[in-house]
């Protein structure tokens, strides 16, 4: 029993560490105001930052994928994920060809439901793999891919936290479940954009009340980012947020019923009776 407990603990630690390090690499402007941005011999460090962020996020994604694939060490889950990722990739392909209003994207619907029903590791893989496969299909491989994979993975991973809540409240299969998922989708619609903005925000130059500058305090950084987000991204992200709510309210109850039925079949194990 003890080795299994240790393995579980180590697994959780790997996930927690890579998540925290990923958060840290996105949020560093808030905590390190003295970071040099002025052009000087130290200016070389500024130009290194996107590369360093890509490296750290890439390694975090690598560790998370490595850890999460242990949960799919089963032919059924590999096949299930392959099919769900294919469906999501087609949705993204359609979205690329026919863009929706604002930042609307249909991919988060299945990522949220998968994470909610099949667990955090499955949800992370679903989010990360959807972005990876759809990037290959649409020719969208780029330096932005690790951060997109990581953030979409977080969407799926965090959706798993809702399951115990709805279970505790006895809301499975009821309207309350849809409401919780819709609120979650709305929040992530905005949060996804806010996190992805952080990728480039410290390197942009613009009006001093919206952009980051070295030496400003935590509260100033927060205020400036808030203003920047309101001015440049809120309207765009609201499209994604509203789209998530619409899709979840309309399609989630029936889709959840189907996924639950197949989850029973995919996790079915035959144990031979002892003779």
């Amino acid at each position, binding site marked *: 029993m003890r080795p299994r407990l240790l393995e579980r603990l180590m697994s959780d630690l790997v996930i927690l560490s890579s998540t925290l390090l990923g958060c840290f690499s996105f949020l560093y402007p808030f905590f390190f105001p003295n970071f040099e941005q002025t052009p000087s011999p130290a200016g070389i460090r500024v130009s*290194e930052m996107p590369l360093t962020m890509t490296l750290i996020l890439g390694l975090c994604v690598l560790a998370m994928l490595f850890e999460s694939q242990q949960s799919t060490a089963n032919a059924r889950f590999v096949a299930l994920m392959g099919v769900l990722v294919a469906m999501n990739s087609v949705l993204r392909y359609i979205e690329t060809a026919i863009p929706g209003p604002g930042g609307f994207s249909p991919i988060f619907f299945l990522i949220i439901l998968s994470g909610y029903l099949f667990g955090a590791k499955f949800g992370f893989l679903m989010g990360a793999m959807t972005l990876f496969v759809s990037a290959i299909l649409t020719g969208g491989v780029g330096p932005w891919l690790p951060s997109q994979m990581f953030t979409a993975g977080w969407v799926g991973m965090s959706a798993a936290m809702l399951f115990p809540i709805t279970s505790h409240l006895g809301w499975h299969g009821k309207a309350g479940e849809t409401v919780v998922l819709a609120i979650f989708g709305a929040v992530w619609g905005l949060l996804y954009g806010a996190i992805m903005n952080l990728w480039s925000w410290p390197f942009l130059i613009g009006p001093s009340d919206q952009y980051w500058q070295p030496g400003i305090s935590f509260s100033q950084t927060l205020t400036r980012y808030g203003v920047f987000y309101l001015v440049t991204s809120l309207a765009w992200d609201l499209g994604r947020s509203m789209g998530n709510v619409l899709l979840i309210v309309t399609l989630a109850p*029936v889709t959840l019923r189907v996924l639950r039925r197949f989850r029973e079949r995919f996790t079915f194990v035959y144990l031979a009776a002892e003779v």
Partner: protein
Amino acid sequence: MPEGHTPAHFHAWVWLTWMTTILLCVSLTRNPLYLVVVWLCVAIVHAAGGMGELAGGNAPLPFWLSLMVVPFGAIFNAFTVHVGERVIFILPGQFPLLSGKITWEAVVYGATNGLALSVILLAFWVFNRNVSIPSFLHMLPRAFHSIAIVGSIAITFVPLLQREVHQIQEAQAIRGNNLSGLRNKLALLLPLLVSSLEHAFQLAEVMTARGFLQSSVSSNQTVWRGAFLGGFGLLLGGWLSRFWGLPGWAANLLFGGAMALFVIVVLATTRKVRYTVYRSTPFRLRDALAMSGCACLLIFLLFQSFVLSAPRLAYSPYPVLRLPPFEPWVACLLLGTLSPWLMAAFQKHDSVS
């Protein structure tokens, strides 16, 4: 020789090295003169076309689209950032964001950033055109075989999904069901979801019957998880040491250590995974030669930036615009990104003569 792989094509690893080199160049320099050299190299490789498994010629649209980013960046930056000494003109009035002095520094800074973005866009277009999906998946280390199989299933399942959608649409049309409107789309989505999951179930049975994953479950999970945790500690240490003003070599050492730990875990796990190669793509001398030009540049960039910590490639037009430094030998090294085009040109010349 595998289908679709002719002697004129380069191995996917060549393109990956080429892509990595370009990204590193763009990440390390904002010197517009060096960026112009890199942009020209990428544009030549793009214009040449016909060097990859998917190559069917050069498309002009991405070329022009990527080029448009440069003036857009310059104009946007000039009208939104009013910093600099060399004033072109002053925009009067109280227009939010726009009013104020328009400076040459802001124009050059915006154009340089646009140029860097243009290089990235064009280079990724070349990469996506030259590396086929199977080759891309084949480059994944065997330690990630589950992920690669998920990717393969997803990619091969896409055409099946399209066929399925058409069949369902036809069946619903025969029944007189209207599929317009979001709620009516359930009549399409649900049968599609159910039939896809049925396919997944059948596929899983076939995979299980053929012994999928029976031999590849890692036995040293505690060890590699420990190595990952150690790697995270080193990454955090390297990251913090950058902000706390420790010497650059200390941070690079910690980053290097973290990368080494991750690579060791991946390689050790890769060795334990048994696999069968159905279509091998040979790595030939010409691939090695094409890769070597990029590799030399890559080593130079890594060495001078992370070992010497030399600001040789650094440049900023702020606070006063001045001519960017230009060292011809650095520009010559940047021409290493032309190596796939050069090798292809030599090969073409040989085959003609």
